[in-house]
């Protein structure tokens, strides 16, 4: 018995895939124009169906069923009123719920979602505000170090993200490096950690490079002649930027926003480490519902809501960048 433990169906599936693939290759090698190239996308389509589409249906299945497997909307009701499941259970056990002081905190799930969206929004705005100028400066053609610097933006991402976040803890703690430094300089200590600002800092830190790359690429690939032409036609530096460089970098911005906003909404771990577990984000909520509360049905409903929300915001962003140019800027 070992951990690899490949199941029988896995072997069959792989053998089948391999078989199809070999037949295809042989056909394409032998016959002139025998096989259409689109067949090459088959293994991929099959893979995506098994490992992306089917799992999504599973989430939907759990979201719309109860523990016994019959159809229900309770999991979504539980999203709006987080006391819903509890009330139902207590009524089943014969308690009079109406007499109880259930507190007005039935909005835990909605609150968490709103809070996560708000945090993600702030994170995206800050990343854009900090990252855009950085990308702009680095893509300056007269700046020789630019290409090297952009590489230096990627490098931190190769250090494990959990470790980087924990390193921030060492810096921000009440007895951490920054506070020790402040104290030795004669300033008082600051409460830098255990609050949502620290969480925000952690998020900006982790997602900033995702904003800088696409913007850098979109500015960098612009034809230098465009801005030169603008200058020749009498535009000053400011005007060249607002009328030429900036509009042409919009696909990069859209791509950057998508790449920062999406992961920020579902951030987890960072609130636990830097926020001292005082605030939960939607990612933490989903994780806790699955792995601590062991409630897959409610957890799936939460995941589904999350998915829909993200697809919605992406389709909004697509309107700004209808060609989806941003996507190739990765």
């Amino acid at each position, binding site marked *: *018995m070992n951990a690899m433990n490949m199941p029988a169906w896995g072997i069959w599936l792989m053998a089948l895939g391999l078989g199809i693939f070999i037949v295809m290759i042989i056909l394409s090698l032998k016959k002139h124009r025998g096989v259409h190239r689109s067949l090459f996308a088959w293994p991929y389509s099959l893979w995506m169906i098994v490992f992306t589409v089917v799992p999504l249906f599973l989430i939907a299945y759990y979201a719309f069923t109860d523990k016994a497997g019959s159809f229900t909307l309770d999991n979504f009701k539980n999203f709006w009123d987080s*006391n819903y*499941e509890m009330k139902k259970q207590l009524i089943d056990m014969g308690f009079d719920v109406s007499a109880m002081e259930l507190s007005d*905190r039935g909005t835990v799930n909605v609150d968490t979602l709103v809070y996560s969206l708000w945090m993600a929004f702030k994170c995206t705005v800050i990343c854009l505000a900090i990252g855009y100028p950085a990308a702009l400066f680095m893509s300056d053609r007269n700046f020789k170090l630019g290409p090297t610097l952009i590489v230096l933006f990627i490098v931190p991402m190769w250090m494990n993200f959990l470790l980087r976040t924990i390193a921030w803890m060492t810096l921000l*703690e009440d007895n951490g490096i920054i506070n020790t430094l402040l104290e030795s300089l004669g300033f008082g200590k600051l*409460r830098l950690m255990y609050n949502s600002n620290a969480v925000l800092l952690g998020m900006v830190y982790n997602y900033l490079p995702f904003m800088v790359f696409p913007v850098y690429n979109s500015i960098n690939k612009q034809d230098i002649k465009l801005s030169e032409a603008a200058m020749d036609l009498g535009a000053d530096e400011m005007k060249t930027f607002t009328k030429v460089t900036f509009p042409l970098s919009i696909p990069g911005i859209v791509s950057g926003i998508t790449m920062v906003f999406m992961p920020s909404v579902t951030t987890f771990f960072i609130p636990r480490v830097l926020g*001292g*577990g005082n605030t939960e984000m939607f990612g933490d909520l989903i994780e806790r519902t699955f792995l601590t509360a*062991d409630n897959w049905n409610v957890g799936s409903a939460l995941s589904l809501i999350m998915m829909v929300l993200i697809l919605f915001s992406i389709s909004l962003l697509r309107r700004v960048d209808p060609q989806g140019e941003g996507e190739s800027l990765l």
Partner: protein
Amino acid sequence: MKKLSILFLAISLLCVTLIAGRAEGVVRVYNWEDYISPESLELFEKETGIKVDYMRFTTNEDMMVQVRTSPGAFDIVFPSDYCVERLISEGLLEELDYSKIPNAIHTSDWLKDPSYDPKGVHSVPYMWGTVGILYDKTRVNGPIDSWGVLFSDEYAGEVFMLDSIRDTMGLALQYLGYSVNTREPNELMEATKLLIDQKTNRIVKAYQVDETKDKMVAGEAILAVMWSGDAQYSISLNDNLAYSVPKEGSNVWVDCFIIPKSSENKENAYKFIDFMCRPEIAQMNCEYIEYSSPNDAAIELMGDEYINNPTMNPSQEVIDRCEFFHDINDFLPTYNTLWAQVKNAK
């Protein structure tokens, strides 16, 4: 590029064979984070030739999900009392054959017939301890002998709470004078309200589990709710710290060895339990993790240093005012919902 991909494949195949090529005799142990002396594991491997695959968890709740969803993955698990009770009722635990665990006779009398597992049919105690308050003697303004200090403004912003549902709800219930195993929703809601107020009044600094140990040593907070062994660990690294079990009572708990029914190496699992129950091994583990030992022979070996340590060896009077957790399965959704309210209160 071709060479590169061949190299890639070769490396990965090598890795796979290295991982897959494991010894025949294994025992897969699923234990709390940092909860056994590595030396004892080495000794076990050396003596029996059985390889230990060691895995860890951080809360009982996480562990239960894994045990349920990965049958066959574990041979030995270390759940706490109420989880033993839960796992028994779900029919997941092996009935133990005590003829294969001769060293189990060293178990202290008061744990031979525990309420969570009558007659110890399914479990052998590994360690036990209490929940209490670890505090910085130099920064408190009076005796720390009541859960009340956690809820007063006096130490606002200087309190670490446990990010663990039963423990934290439990202490709030006890402060209010209720049982930790209450089945009265109103009492639970009262406790929840207490915890929410504590949080919204900015008394709590953070909810954490294992990270508290090191942070208390570094002086990050004045008060912290802690398990006795973690407290002892911190005290031994920082003389300013002390531990107390509040007068309202607290929770006494036992972590046990259990063998899941789905275990694929039961014989090895028995050998493992028996080995760990040996007096000198139990002593080694007790001295390493600094919790209280349920092993009389090991206690005898440790002598006065253990017996005179109030954190590790609380008096009978302290134990008497403590309560075991019991399985409250049908109340779990309620607990989870109320806990979510606490964690998200602003």
